[in-house]
């Protein structure tokens, strides 16, 4: 049907420019083989939330904070490193590494600092290295040995707020990526691969009742499971969780969580996926959905009238504040 319609004759069709096609094809392949990561939500605070939480735990036994000494992780494979391209400076927030024991290490490039779980030998090594170099100024770097040979060097520039990770493998190959605020990665590549519930496989939502006070929710879309408060991965992580039932009840109420007996169904889940809806203080109705098997969740914001005013895809390995 090529009917003409008087004056409203559009221009002749043109080809997609080859370079555009090439770029699109690359994107589509990434979409099929990896999640399409975009982030819109407020980033985790640039302040050392997790460090503060852990220190609070050690120093004062702050129960709620202890739960938030979460160990967030995202497996960075070679494909990840290849796919994730430097995107420029960021001046705030931090990146969380997870050591092979599931303990966190926080690096805040903008502050050339960070912190770590005191029980993490990797954290001690990393920051000892930093201190011994006397590089609390504009630039800093530290290197750890990788199993099987090779090294991983973490560099950050305070002024730019960027953090790069360079892996030099035993075979001489190298790969570099730039990490962004809110990213969580394993400190040692592949070290968490055999653990199905480490947070690199989850989208983590921080359920704060007020700053630094609340619990975390981990949604594992691939497994179609969601956990709240108690980290479901390593025993050491579970051990950090001493749930304050009063606080937990408040979190459950505030964020409309499920309170059933199944601890892996902290939000409504059926065989096809999950759908979690709660309201924000400004009246926005936020819905988080996923299909079982996906590697991401979709966040949709609606006005009370029902009009959608925001939608975003959050890949696994992302940590955001719920509202």
């Amino acid at each position, binding site marked *: *049907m*090529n*009917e*003409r*319609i*008087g*004056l*409203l*004759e*559009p*221009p*002749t*069709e*043109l*080809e*997609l*420019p080859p*370079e*555009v*096609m090439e*770029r*699109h*094809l*690359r*994107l*589509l*392949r*990434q*979409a*099929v*083989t990896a999640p*399409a*990561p*975009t*982030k*819109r939500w407020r980033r985790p605070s640039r302040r050392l939330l997790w460090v503060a939480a852990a220190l609070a735990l050690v120093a004062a036994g702050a129960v709620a904070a202890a739960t938030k000494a979460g160990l967030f992780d995202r497996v960075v494979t070679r494909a990840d490193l290849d*796919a994730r*391209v*430097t*995107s420029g400076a960021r001046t705030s927030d931090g990146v969380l590494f997870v050591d092979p024991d599931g303990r966190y290490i926080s690096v805040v490039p903008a502050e050339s600092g960070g912190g770590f779980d005191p029980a993490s030998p990797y954290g001690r090594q990393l920051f000892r290295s930093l201190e011994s170099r006397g590089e609390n100024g504009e630039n800093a770097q530290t290197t750890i040995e990788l199993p099987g040979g090779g090294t991983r060097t973490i560099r950050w520039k305070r002024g730019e707020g960027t953090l790069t990770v360079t892996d030099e493998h035993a075979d001489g190959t190298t790969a570099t990526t730039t990490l962004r605020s809110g990213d969580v990665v394993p400190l040692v590549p592949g070290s968490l691969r055999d653990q199905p519930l480490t947070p690199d496989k989850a989208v983590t939502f921080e359920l704060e009742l007020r700053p630094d006070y609340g619990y975390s929710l981990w949604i594992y879309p691939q497994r179609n499971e969601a956990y709240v408060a108690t980290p479901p991965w390593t025993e050491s992580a579970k051990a950090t969780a001493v749930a304050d039932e009063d606080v937990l009840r408040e979190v459950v109420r505030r964020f409309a969580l499920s309170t059933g007996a199944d601890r892996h169904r902290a939000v409504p889940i059926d065989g*096809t*996926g999950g759908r979690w809806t709660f309201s924000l203080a400004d009246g926005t109705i936020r819905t988080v959905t996923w*299909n079982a*098997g*996906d590697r991401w969740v*979709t966040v949709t914001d609606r006005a009370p009238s029902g009009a959608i005013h*925001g*939608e*975003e*895809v959050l890949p696994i390995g992302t940590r955001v504040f719920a509202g």
Partner: protein
Amino acid sequence: MGDRSAGEADSVLWTRTVEGDPDAFAELYRRHGKRIYNYLFRRVGDWSEAEDLTASVFLEAYRRRHEVAIPEEKVGAWFFGIATNLAHNRRRSLRSARRLLERLAGAVSARPGESDASARAEAREQMGAVLAAMSALPREQQDVVALCLWSGLSYEDAAVALSIPIGTVRSRLSRARAALAELEPGSRHGISQNQEVEELLR
């Protein structure tokens, strides 16, 4: 991409895409990308935006792969439906698309080659005038004009794209034609700001 994908029906390619086959998805893009691209250009009047939105159409299709049941051999029509929705929400769609593109590819929007530049500039100018005239129609009539008359979709495919009955496509198109017939002098007047287009209309 092998010959296998090239000879397969859209529905087979889509099934393979849903199962995680990037080659199948790439083939679908090669088959439908150009039409979607031109359709989006004709809806938004900007080549660069059409490029980004084209990528978004396919990414959105993949994201929703488990949510929809596409009628047999209507994959292309479904892409047009997504494109229509993205064009309707152009500003938000572009914001989202460009964040995604930046994040995934670390690339800025590619510029067309020099040899293409004049043709694209001319097309853009022409399309601006056409869209100005089209704006007199209700949006649902613009949709059927753009799908059926500009992109050559059958009524059936347009119905799939817009999720409306075929009869509704027909009636909307009929009303659009009638409205355009009445609007023609005014449309011409509106377009006359562009001398070259005015010449073409004489």
